[in-house]
Structure formats: structure tokens, C-alpha cells
């Protein structure tokens, strides 16, 4: 109704454009209210909480950098930083390599291609917590199907304690994360591959390029912009991962798989230390910004050098 009244003087396009600002404000209002109330405000509040000693059920007071000073001397916090970096680096690198490989395979002429494309995306569609439960069962200390198969094949003698020792647990959660992340990388890169004109490949092969050279000097440069975006997203989601760890190990054994997100949850919600949890969450922001800058600008620069437009 109110939009109608604003629209009244519509005899010239220029007045309409001037009214546009008012109208746009009205149109933006629902989204803006939501995002300001539940995104911008909490973001600011989170930073503020990090400077207070708020607990569940008790208002906090400003305590300056105390939370951060405490965290700086907290071995578990630094372990979680190390774990997060390890988890993100290894999982993202492997996801990228395997995802690109799968995308290249799917880009070939294959029977039932769209069927394969559809089922490959499944791990990404299914709720992480529920697929993580399946992994929990697969990683069972006694009845793991992987251990059983390896024993039957004569490769190992006793069941692997997947989630019981620090390094096994790290490898196991990283594997589960890779499993879930490959489809996203593969399907996104496949969409990028399909925009590369085949004629470039033909020209390169006529000039005697080997398949590796065609990949290295045709496919990869053409794909770089989309790799940058996909990997930015991938790094971002891996770095802030919570669900997988929470289901599989809850940070254990002896904090070996605690990520910053799970540690922040554990300190804030079951532990009740909202202020300290918020400080851990805030400590993730610089890493996130660095990761975004690195993967986005680092990879995108090449495109500018080639004189492409974004």
C-alpha cells in the first residue's frame, strides 16, 4: 500500500529515480532489520563480550584484555589454534587436489554423466551431523568396517583405534571433512571447466602440447578465478567447522582435535564462560580475514595480470 503512495508522481523518469531511494529503503527494510538485529549487532556484541567476564546467568563487567591474556597463556587454546590450522591446511589442500581430479574426470565424455554428477553431490547435501554419525560408526574402535576389511586383506593385525589416539583422531576427522568437501569443490570446478572453450585445447594440441602442458597452460590459468572463489569458501567453511568434530570426538582425545570453534563452544555453553568463549571466537576473525585475503587476492592477481575483467 505504502509503495503505491510513493509511486504517485510518476510523470518523469527522473523524479521516479529520486523517489527510488525512499522506495529502496522500504524494500530493503525486512532484510536490513534481520541482518542488523541478528548479524551485525551480534558481531559487535561478540567483540564486546570478549572484553567482559560474562557468564551464563550473570551480567559481566568490562575487564579489558584479561580474557585474551588468559588465552595467550592457555596451552589448550594454542593447541586448538594449531589443530585448526593443520585441519584447514591439510583438508583444503587434499579437497582441492581430489576435487580438481574428480572435476577433470567428470569433464570428459562419460556415459551417465549427469547421473554421476548427481550422486557425487550427495555427501554435501546430507546433513553433516548425520553423515558424521555414519563416520562415527565406521570409525568404531572395535567394529570398524575399515579395520575389519584391512584385517581380512591381511594388511593389519588388530583393529585401528581411529578416534582413540591424537594423531589417528586428527587423520580421521580430516578424512571425514575431506569426504564431505570434495563434492562442493568438484562440482564448482566442473562448472568452471565447462566454460573453457574446447578450441583452446585443440589449438594447443595442434601445436604439440602434451596433455600435462594443456592442463598446466590452458586449463589451470583459465580456471584460476573460479579456483580462487571456491577455495576461499572451502577454507572458510573448514576453518570454522564445528559439527564434524563435535560428533566424532568432541575435541578429544586430550584436546587433540579441538578446533577453535569447538573450544569456544565448550568454554561458553557447557562451561558457562560466555566472555571467554566469545574471545576465542573473536580470535578466529584475523585468521579468517588472512585466509580470505590470501586465497582471494593471491589467486586472483593472475587474472588481473592477464588483463581480464572481473
Amino acid at each position, binding site marked *: 500500500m505504502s509503495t503505491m503512495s510513493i509511486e504517485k508522481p510518476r510523470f518523469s523518469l527522473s523524479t521516479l529515480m529520486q523517489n527510488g531511494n525512499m522506495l529502496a529503503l522500504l*524494500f530493503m527494510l525486512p*532484510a536490513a532489520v534481520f541482518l542488523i538485529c541478528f548479524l551485525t549487532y551480534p558481531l559487535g556484541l561478540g567483540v564486546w563480550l570478549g572484553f567482559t567476564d560474562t557468564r551464563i546467568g550473570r551480567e559481566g563487567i568490562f575487564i579489558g584484555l584479561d580474557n585474551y591474556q588468559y588465552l595467550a597463556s592457555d596451552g589448550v587454546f594454542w593447541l586448538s589454534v594449531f589443530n585448526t590450522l593443520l585441519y584447514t591446511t591439510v583438508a583444503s589442500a587434499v579437497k582441492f587436489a581430489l576435487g580438481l581430479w574428480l572435476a577433470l574426470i567428470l569433464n570428459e565424455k562419460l556415459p551417465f554423466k549427469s547421473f554421476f554428477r548427481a550422486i557425487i553431490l550427495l555427501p554435501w547435501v546430507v546433513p553433516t551431523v*548425520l553423515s558424521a554419525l555414519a563416520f562415527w560408526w565406521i570409525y568404531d574402535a572395535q567394529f570398524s568396517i575399515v579395520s575389519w576389511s584391512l584385517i581380512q586383506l591381511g594388511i593389519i593385525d588388530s583393529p585401528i583405534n581411529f578416534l582413540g589416539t591424537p594423531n589417528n583422531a586428527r587423520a580421521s576427522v580430516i578424512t571425514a571433512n575431506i569426504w564431505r568437501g*570434495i563434492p562442493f569443490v568438484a562440482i564448482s570446478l566442473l562448472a568452471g571447466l565447462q566454460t573453457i572453450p574446447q578450441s583452446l585445447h585443440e589449438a594447443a594440441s595442434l601445436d604439440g602440447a602434451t596433455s600435462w602442458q594443456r592442463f598446466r597452460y590452458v586449463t589451470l590459468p583459465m580456471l584460476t578465478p573460479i579456483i580462487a572463489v571456491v577455495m576461499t569458501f572451502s577454507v572458510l567453511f573448514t576453518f570454522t567447522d564445528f559439527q564434524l568434530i563435535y560428533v566424532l570426538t568432541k575435541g578429544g582425545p586430550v584436546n587433540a582435535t579441538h578446533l577453535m570453534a569447538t573450544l569456544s563452544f565448550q568454554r561458553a555453553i557447557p562451561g558457562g564462560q560466555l566472555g571467554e568463549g566469545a574471545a576465542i571466537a573473536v580470535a578466529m576473525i584475523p585468521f579468517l580475514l588472512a585466509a580470505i585475503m590470501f586465497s582471494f587476492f593471491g589467486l586472483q592477481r593472475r587474472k588481473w595480470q592477464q588483463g581480464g575483467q572481473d
Partner: protein
Amino acid sequence: MNTQAQSESQALTDTSEGMSYLNRLPRRLVVLYLPLAIFVFVLLFPFYWMTITAIKPNAQLTDYNNYSPFWVVGPTLAHIRYLFFETSYPGWLVNTMYVAVASTVLSIAASVFAAYAIERIRFTGARPVGLLIFLAYLVPPSILFIPLAYIVFKFGIYDSKLALIFTYPTFLIPFCTWLLMGYFRSIPFELEESALVDGASRWQILTKIILPLAVPGLISAGIFAFTLSWNEFIYALTFIQSSENKTVPVGVLTELVRGDIFEWGALMAGALFGSLPVVILYSFFVDYYVSSMTGAVKE
């Protein structure tokens, strides 16, 4: 969208001659089919394992020596019956559905207006606002859940479905707006101009011209938003306490896992039926899905 579709079809027709040296069968087997088979096996095995565990009688679950673990003799519905009649699982399913549908509808409505305003009304500052929306999408829930818990508590909606319906749009609105901006951009501006000349109001243009043309975009955004809210975990875990308000992922993890004796059959049945709704939705809309996923990345 159009240019993308064009170039895709162009690339597809181009391939027909393409790299024929790869066509020798033995080489194709080793280079293409074998890795593909391994990928498909690894990516699908957990689902197979989930399904087969859900219908295995308890006796066979852990007895790998007498029964092949990869198959099931005399499948049983006992786990599923237990899940649906002796736990709160059906309630969780209803909750998840309710929360996912409500937050999706809310987000799509808000996003349509926002995307239209940014893309077509071109108000002062539309570009920076568009960029801010994209940045909002990059803010991860694991940073927001603590202050949000605080806010939700202050609003008095803690431990209610409203807490989830109001907080899920924080990641749905940025995503849907971003996606719809791309779709609106692909609708020719001339259509809108001629409607303006004919005296249509902005509201009429939006409802009679833009929205009907953007239906594929709305479907993409809708199913994607539904899936994201169905899969959401950390907010639901933090904001919900009572069993009757829990969503499937939280309920399965916090109430079906108890003590040291894991009822793997019931757990896997819970995981299976919690995945089915999104998988069914996905199977009907694969292409919309792929286009919304890649669209969000490409723009």
C-alpha cells in the same frame, strides 16, 4: 545464466571431436573409469553403511565372523519401529520441517525485496550494500552463536522454535539475496522500462513481471535455503534445551546417543530418515541445486 548455459552447451558440442587420443579403451579404463569408480565408491559407501546398519538385526550388527558385514540376512524394521514409536524422533522431524519451511519462506520474502532494490531500483549506495550482503554471507555461525545465544535469551525466545526461525535467516538472507541478484540481473531491463512507461508501479512490476520470470531462481534459492536450514546444527544445539523443540540433527546426537552402549541400528536409522527429506528434494531438483551452488560461487 544464459551465457553460462550457452557456453556449457557450446563446450558440450565441441567435445564431440576433442581429444581423441584418450579414446583408446584400456587407457580410458585406467585414467577415467577406475578413479571414477573409486571416487563414487568412497563417496557413497557411508550411505550404504548407514542404510544396511539401519535394517540389520542386532545379532548381525557386530558379528562379522558369521555374517558378512556388507550384506544383511533377514532385514528387520525393529530399529525403525523403535525410532518412530519409542523416541521423540517424529516430533523432531516435524520441528525441523517447521523451522526449515518458516525460515526459508521468511528469508526468500525478505531477499526478493532486497535483491530487487539493489539490482533494479539502483538507489544511492546500492553497490556497497550488495557487497555488504556478500560479506554477510562469509560471516560463519561459529563466530555468531555465543552473542546470538545472549540475544535470544534477552528476547525471551530461548528454547523455542522462534529462536531458530529468527536466527537462520542470518545466513539464508545473504545467500538468497546474492543468488536472486544474479537472476534479476539476467532479466532484460527493457521489460521493466516498458512496464514503467505503461504506468505500472514498482510493486506491479515486481509481482507481475520480475517474479514470474525469476521462478527458476526462486526455486533454486528456496530449495537451497531449505537444505541449509535442515542441516543447521550449532544454533539448534545452543538455543534449544527441551526435547520437544529439538531438530533432527540435535535430537539424534543428544538423545539417541546415551551411555556406553550405542544402539547403532536406531542411530543409523535416525541418520537415514533425517537425510531422506533433503535427498528426495535434491533428487527432484538436481539442476536447480547445482546452478544455485555454482551460481553463488561464480557471481
